[in-house]
C-alpha cells in the first residue's frame, strides 16, 4: 500500500529515531524532534517504536490511503479528520482504502507525528529513513514530502483501533516553557551579571526556528569578559577556537540571540556555548510555537541524569499502557 500526499503541509518530512554514529563526520543524528511522540505513535499502531513516521510542523498534510490501515497522530494538539469526521489524537484509528486524512488548525504544541501500521518504507540511508535535506539523505530522495508523492508502507499484521495513550502520559508544554540547561565549558566567557540575566530573563521563540536550531529573542545582550582572542579564534567576543557542538548546545553569536541546536545540528564551529539543554527537555523544544515565552533554568548533572531517568520511566509507562 502507499500513502498519497495530496497536500504536503509545511516541511512535512519522514522521520524515525535518526542515524546516530556519524556526527563526527558532520552528519547529525536527525530523527523526530519529539522522540517520545514518535515512539508513542508507533506503539499505538503496532509498529516497532523506531519505525518511520511523518513529522509535520504547524500545518497538517492531507493524505489519501490506498489500502486499509491503522493510523495514529501524536505530539501537537491538532484536530485529526478522516473524510472530514473528527477523531481523537494519541489514539489508534482505523482507515479504509480511499479515505483521506486531513487536519484542522493547530491548537497547542508545534509538531504532529503520523504513524501508519507497517511504517513508511522508503529506502534507508546510513541506517535511517530520517530526512536530512541539507545532506540529501533519507526521506523521499533526501527531501521533504511533496504533493503527488506516493510513500510505500511496510507490511503489518494490523493493530486494533481505539487504543489510546492515557492523557496523563502525554507531555504538555508549560507556558512559559522551562528548558533546563547544564552550564558548559565556555560559560566563563560571559560576566557573572550576564549569566544571571540569561537565566533570569524571559526569552521568546523566534519564528525562524527549524530542525537545525531554535533561536530565541527578547532577553538582554550578553556582556563578555574582556580578552585577547586566542590564535585561531575570530575577533568577535563570542568566537572561540573552533570546537565541537553537542545536541542541545546553546550558542549566542555576538551575545545577542541564543540558538539551541536540535536534531539536524551542525557538529562544530567557532561560537562559544553557554551550556546545553538537557536531553530530557529536547522533545519539548520540538513542540514550541513561535513567540512562546521560555525560561532557561540552570541545573546540575545530577538533576539532568535524574530527569533523563524520569523520561525513561514515562516511556515505560506508555509501553505498559499499550502493551
Amino acid at each position: 500500500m502507499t500513502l498519497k500526499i495530496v497536500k504536503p503541509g509545511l516541511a512535512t518530512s519522514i522521520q524515525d529515531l535518526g542515524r546516530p554514529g556519524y556526527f563526527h563526520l558532520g552528519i547529525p543524528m536527525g530523527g523526530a524532534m519529539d522522540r517520545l511522540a514518535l515512539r508513542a505513535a508507533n506503539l499505538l499502531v503496532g509498529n516497532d517504536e523506531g519505525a518511520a513516521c511523518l513529522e509535520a510542523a504547524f500545518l497538517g498534510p492531507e493524505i489519501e490511503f490506498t489500502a486499509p490501515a491503522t493510523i495514529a497522530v501524536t505530539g501537537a494538539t491538532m484536530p485529526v479528520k478522516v473524510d472530514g469526521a473528527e477523531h481523537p489524537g494519541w489514539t489508534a484509528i482505523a482507515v479504509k482504502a480511499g479515505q483521506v486524512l486531513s487536519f484542522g488548525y493547530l491548537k497547542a504544541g508545534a509538531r504532529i507525528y503520523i504513524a501508519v501500521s507497517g511504517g513508511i518504507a522508503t529506502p534507508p540511508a546510513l541506517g535511517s529513513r530520517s530526512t536530512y535535506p541539507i545532506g540529501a539523505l533519507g526521506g523521499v530522495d533526501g527531501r521533504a514530502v511533496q504533493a503527488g508523492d506516493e510513500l510505500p508502507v511496510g507490511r503489518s499484521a494490523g493493530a486494533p483501533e481505539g487504543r489510546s495513550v492515557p492523557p496523563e502520559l502525554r507531555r504538555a508544554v508549560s507556558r512559559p516553557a522551562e528548558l533546563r540547561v547544564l552550564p558548559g565549558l565556555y560559560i566563563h566567557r560571559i560576566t557573572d551579571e550576564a549569566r544571571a540575566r540569561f537565566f533570569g530573563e524571559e526569552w521568546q521563540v523566534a519564528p525562524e526556528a527549524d530542525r537545525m536550531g531554535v533561536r530565541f529573542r527578547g532577553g538582554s545582550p550578553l556582556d563578555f569578559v574582556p580578552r585577547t582572542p586566542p590564535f585561531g579564534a575570530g575577533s568577535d567576543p563570542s568566537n572561540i577556537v573552533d570546537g565541537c557542538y553537542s545536541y542541545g548546545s546553546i550558542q549566542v553569536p555576538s551575545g545577542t540571540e541564543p540558538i539551541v541546536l536540535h536534531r539536524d545540528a551542525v557538529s562544530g564551529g567557532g561560537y562559544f556555548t553557554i551550556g546545553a539543554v538537557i536531553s530530557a527537555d529536547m522533545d519539548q523544544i520540538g513542540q514550541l510555537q513561535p513567540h512562546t515565552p521560555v525560561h532557561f533554568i540552570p541545573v546540575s548533572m545530577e538533576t539532568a541524569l535524574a530527569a533523563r531517568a524520569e523520561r525513561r520511566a514515562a516511556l515505560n509507562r506508555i509501553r505498559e499502557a499499550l502493551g
Partner: protein
Amino acid sequence: MKEIPSPLPGTFYHKPAPDQPPFKANGDAVAPDDTIGLVEVMKTFIEVKAEVAGSFAGYVAQDSSPVQAGDTLAKVE
C-alpha cells in the same frame, strides 16, 4: 462579514516586501485565490489565501505581529 483565519502560527505581514504596499486595501475586490498576507515561520513565508470572495474590509491582525493558528487576520464583506 467573513473572517480569514491564519492557517498556522508565526509572524503576519500585510505587505509582500517592506517597501511595497499591502496586498489589499479596504474596498478592494477579493477572490478566493487572492493572497491577503504572509505568515513567516521556519524561514519560510507562507501566502495566506482569502478562500472567500467579496470586498476587503480591513486587516484585523497588525502588520509584523505574532499570530496563532486560527487567529483572524482580516475581514471580507
